[in-house]
């Protein structure tokens, strides 16, 4: 597997390999020299067609800690604003010798197109495409949960909020199911996608019901920029029924953790007290993002070929 496009492409072995590798790489952050020589001479392009702070910085830090050269490309201020197509942008990157392209795009499936078009030879890593997937976010979430909860087999994870527009929720549901966790998505009916009953998870409209048995609760951002229709009557009503405040947090088990992929709307889906609570691991998620992305870049680019998807290949050749 040369690319990382979807959490669904990861077998259980692949996912555990990434998480275990990230665990070892997390130590690099505590060393006097936070750098490994592994990807020296390789070029990683961050191709961001959508705004992002933490994901882009996280990929940049990860690539730099592995000694790769990083080229940052954002659509704003580039030829894209002059009307350049994805194809021409890709051909430009290929001409510059990109070994990996980390792409974020507003259109679902753009990374898939880039990976399978033949425009570029390097690996493609999906850093969030439209409302489709965000696999490295799911990996860093699983990494964070694993640190606090141990192995995720049988653990109960509740994902709350705008599931309809959330690539984070999609990738998390897929990855957590692969890792054997029991996932429940909770949202108002208008914010659950059609076909959620075919997902490998349970769903509910009632947050208070779902909280008591949860080992981790992940609050999703209300994506105002994608809300072009009235999905709920008012922010206040959403907050009252689906927001996590201190009172609601009391329903959680004592060792349960609170997560949020960021950026947060404090006071909407999560109250400030909960966001800053000792049981909130939101800042840690950002730290872990660098380790997980280092692991992904290393496993995709570090060797003569990718270390991911090896088990499937072996099975296929039997």
């Amino acid at each position, binding site marked *: 597997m040369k690319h990382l496009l979807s959490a669904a492409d990861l077998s259980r072995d692949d996912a555990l*390999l990434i998480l275990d590798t990230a665990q070892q*790489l997390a130590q690099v952050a505590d060393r006097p020299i936070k750098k490994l020589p592994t990807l020296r001479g390789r070029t990683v392009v961050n191709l961001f067609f959508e705004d992002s702070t933490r994901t882009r910085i996280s990929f940049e830090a990860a690539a730099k800690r592995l000694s790769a050269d990083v080229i940052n490309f954002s659509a704003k201020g580039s030829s894209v604003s002059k009307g350049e197509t994805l194809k021409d942008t890709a051909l430009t990157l290929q001409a510059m010798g990109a070994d990996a392209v980390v792409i974020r795009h507003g259109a679902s499936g753009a990374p898939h197109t880039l990976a399978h078009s033949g425009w570029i030879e390097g690996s493609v890593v999906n850093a969030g495409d439209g409302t489709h997937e965000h696999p490295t976010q799911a990996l860093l979430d699983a990494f964070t949960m694993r640190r606090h909860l141990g192995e995720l087999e049988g653990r109960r994870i509740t994902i709350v909020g705008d599931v309809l527009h959330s690539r984070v929720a999609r990738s998390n549901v897929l990855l957590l199911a692969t890792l054997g966790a029991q996932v429940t998505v909770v949202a108002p009916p208008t914010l659950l996608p059609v076909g959620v009953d075919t997902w490998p998870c349970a769903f509910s409209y009632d947050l208070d019901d779902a909280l008591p048995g949860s080992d981790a609760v992940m609050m999703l951002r209300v994506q105002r920029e994608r809300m072009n229709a009235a999905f709920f009557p008012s922010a206040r009503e959403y907050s009252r029924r689906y927001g996590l405040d201190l009172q609601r947090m009391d329903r959680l088990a004592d060792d349960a953790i609170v997560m949020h992929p960021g950026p947060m709307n404090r006071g909407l889906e999560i109250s400030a007290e909960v966001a800053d609570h000792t049981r909130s691991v939101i800042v840690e998620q950002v730290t872990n993002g660098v380790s997980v992305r280092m692991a992904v870049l290393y496993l995709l680019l570090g*060797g003569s070929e990718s270390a991911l998807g090896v088990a499937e290949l072996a099975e296929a050749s039997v």
Partner: protein
Amino acid sequence: MPTAAFDEGRVRTVLDADDVQRALTRIAHEILERNKGATGVVLLGIPTRGVPLAHRLAERMAAVEGTEIPVGSLDVTMYRDDLRLKPARGLEHTELPETGVDGAVVVLVDDVLFSGRTVRAALDALGDLGRPRAVQLAVLVDRGHRELPIRADFVGKNLPTSTSETVRVALTELDGHDGVVLAEVDSTDEAEPA
């Protein structure tokens, strides 16, 4: 790494369990002798088999000196020069003793010294973790065929080999028994340069 998979006659035992014990005891004493005691000495095993060897050496040194010897492990995967020749692989654990390596005499411990490339990688890895006062190298078996100007300070057994042979070290902690065997490499069983 299976050792039982070889046919009789193609495998020669070089060190049996008692020989391994004796070699380690001698190396432990040599380390203490060279460094005039255990003060400032840190043992770092190179995964996989260097790690249990480092712990065994530390036990023996502690028994002689009566003080705890700091032991750790040092994964060199990310520093290898052959990374791009093989598919990427998972990492082993790096764990430094709490004392760190700054100003210490670090003794790297590995099972087999072959091309010297692992040791070169280890020296690079060590340089990113701190600045030891000195670095020494202890190996259970030196099989020759160096490709870099590197030598061991403490050797359990010097073993002349041909490049068509492979040295397999078994340790109780990982393999259930101690021993070193020399075997012919067959085409399906690639030798792993150490």
